């Protein structure tokens, strides 16, 4: 039997953390890209597009992430994709993130005075230009605190992908725990690592919020 010292456990966990980080980054970037499209649908002039956007957001915010991940994991193979925990995890978290980011940004867009749209139109910009040059930069700026806050939520959510078999921090911890029978130490360390990742971001979100001009 192999003996694990405290440092062996810690080293293995820290090593596994890179997958947690990578997954968080991929899901945040992917979620931002898809979320932008959902945002466009949500604030479109077409009624059916707006309905689709709000339905999409309600669906992802009204169901458990664990179920979304299972549907990805078992649904993708039916569409002919190869089943792999990494793909299911990345896609599942991307769609999940897109719904939340779209909703956060929609709040930003709707918080802007309508005069911003009018001003853009009076300069002869068409709708896409208005969005790109006038509306979105301001909407992104005022929604930065909740977006950073959501990144924290996303990092924490990556722990769920251990259940569908993606080898991130928590799944590695489960394996180590099965070998060492030291759940108190192992899960305690996992909590500490997540805390070290998330706390600075939480503080950053708070600082951003404090710096926000009051409306």
């Amino acid at each position: 039997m192999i003996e694990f010292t405290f440092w062996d456990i810690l080293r293995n966990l820290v090593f596994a953390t890179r997958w947690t980080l990578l997954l968080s980054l991929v899901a945040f970037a992917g979620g931002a890209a898809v979320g932008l499209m959902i945002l466009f649908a949500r604030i479109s002039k077409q009624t059916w597009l707006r309905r689709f956007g709000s339905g999409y957001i309600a669906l992802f915010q009204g169901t458990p992430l664990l179920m979304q991940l299972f549907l990805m994991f078992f649904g993708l193979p039916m569409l002919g994709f190869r089943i792999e925990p990494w793909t299911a995890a990345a896609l599942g978290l991307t769609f999940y993130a897109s719904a939340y980011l779209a909703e956060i940004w929609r709040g930003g867009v709707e918080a802007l005075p309508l005069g911003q749209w009018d001003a853009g139109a009076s300069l002869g910009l068409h709708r896409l230009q208005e969005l790109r040059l006038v509306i979105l930069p301001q909407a992104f700026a005022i929604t930065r605190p909740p977006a950073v806050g959501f990144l924290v939520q996303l990092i924490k959510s990556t722990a769920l992908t251990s259940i569908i078999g993606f080898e991130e921090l928590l799944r590695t911890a489960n394996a180590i725990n099965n070998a060492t029978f030291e759940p108190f130490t192992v899960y305690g360390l996992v909590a500490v690592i997540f805390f070290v990742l998330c706390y600075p971001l939480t503080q950053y979100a708070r600082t951003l919020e404090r710096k926000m001009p009051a409306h």
Partner: protein
Amino acid sequence: MGYGLDFGWLRDAAGAIAHGATMTLFLIACTTVLGILISILFAAARRSRYGVLRKAVAVYVEVVRNTPFLVQLFFIFFGLPSIGVRLDPIVAAILAMTLNMAAYTTEIVGAGLDAVPKGQSEAAFALGLRRRQVFVKIILPQALKVIFPALVSQVIIMMLESAVVSQIAVRELAHEADLLQARTFRSFETYFVVTLIYLGLSMAIRRLFVASGRRMLGAGVS
């Protein structure tokens, strides 16, 4: 190779699904009651005269909010027995859910308490009410009215997150889904149906809370 969707298993599974949904509702009901009571206490502690108490609550809130619920659950269920605290899965689930939700609702309740104008408690004291009466009868109802929508959202988020307690074999909705799909080999259909049930539950809970909130706290609750 074609793959056809098949929902034929659903008729025999209705009982198991209903049982799981009942357990999910039971868990979230316990969590809501306990979580809100604790967060009222903690929000008060956060504003108390004792520095130690204020610090302790602040640390608890930060630790819970910056670690995943699943890790908290595993720590409570697998980790605590090694220091002699052995819990039944259902008790561990309710404990983990309550501690998790209270960390979020403590902040919400606190914001609500701060939102009640000081004149309200001054007026109540002037009428001769005692400290506890002022808090329970004057401050708390007004605070609850302000924070009601945020509380309801937090309850629904917790209900959705409770799906992960299936991992410690609590027989709630997600766990029934795991068992069903292992029996029927209809994984996608099973999780699809159960996902829709979760969606229905979250909409029903919101409706129920808004309706009862209007009755108890008066109009203007949304």
